[in-house]
């Protein structure tokens, strides 16, 4: 197929897809028939698609056992329960951890509580954990913002 033949490639593709899927109008079918008659490469491509359609028409998705449907809503409901449970556990953990951390900071700065070496080790451990947490959270947020499937690219 060359540019000299002034064949609108996109149009041919759309006509072939519409014909394969039974969404073609009478006028469009005539247009496709004329293209197939005039262009051997279009005719060849059309035959290949027809052969493929024969195969895919005979395919279906495998049905799961009937018990799957009987248990489906219960499984979904358990998930919603667990979601609420995780939310409550997370809130409780954050509040308790914050409370503990506040007391730990107060104790850390209290004079003569622990030897200097131990206090420095605790400080290093705490700073390290904070950096790790910030890094993980930042990665999560960054990944979500750049999710390629959040917005469709319109061609």
């Amino acid at each position: 197929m060359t540019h000299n033949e002034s064949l609108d490639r996109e149009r041919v593709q759309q006509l072939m897809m519409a014909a394969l899927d039974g969404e073609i109008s009478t006028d469009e079918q005539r247009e496709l028939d004329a293209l197939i008659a005039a262009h051997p490469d279009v005719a060849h491509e059309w035959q290949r698609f027809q052969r493929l359609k024969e195969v895919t028409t005979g395919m279906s998705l495998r049905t799961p056992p009937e018990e799957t449907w009987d248990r489906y809503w219960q499984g979904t409901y358990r998930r919603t329960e667990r979601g609420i449970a995780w939310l409550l556990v997370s809130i409780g953990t954050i509040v308790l951890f914050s409370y503990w951390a506040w007391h730990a900071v107060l104790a850390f700065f209290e004079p003569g509580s622990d030897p200097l070496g131990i206090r420095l080790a605790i400080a290093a451990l705490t700073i390290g954990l904070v950096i790790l947490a910030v890094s993980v959270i930042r990665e999560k947020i960054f990944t979500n913002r750049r999710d390629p499937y959040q917005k469709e690219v319109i061609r």
Partner: protein
Amino acid sequence: MDTVTPIGETDMVLVRQAQAGDAAAFGRLVERYMRRAYFAALSLVGSREDALDLSQEAFARAYRSRAAIDPERPFYAWLYQILRRLCFNFLRDRRTRARVLESAGAWLADDAARRAAPNPADAFEREERRRMVAAAIESLPAREREVLALKEFEGLSYKEIAALVGVPIGTVMSRLYSARQRLVQALEVER
């Protein structure tokens, strides 16, 4: 694939009841769309266990954010947005993708192909072609595979696919063309 809708129990009514705190009403929405959601996930991720897991998770997320559902709009279209994002994120994970590719078409039924074949040799050839096409479908880019599955397995019209996926009809057709081109090439390479 959906169950019969009792009179008066439209999606709109059930969504409103669910938003008012009626979990049973949401349960009826789940029963109405569970098969469709499961099969949509299955055609995308190609594993029955994962399809079950992802479709249930989509319903659970929908339930948690039910306050945001617009009862005037089709419930399934809203659910599908959650489901497809879950499936795409799942496919993006390379570890899970490698596991899915091992399934090699186990998610597709072949009874129609067997019925159509007049003798064992033809049946074998058809089965081989089916296996090749299934493997090629599994290696399609996710968005082409999605459109192909909605057309071939759900039997939706271009207009319905465009509405679900949120792209123009022309994009649906070009994705279908691209997907089928890849499948045709896969069939010819194997010969």
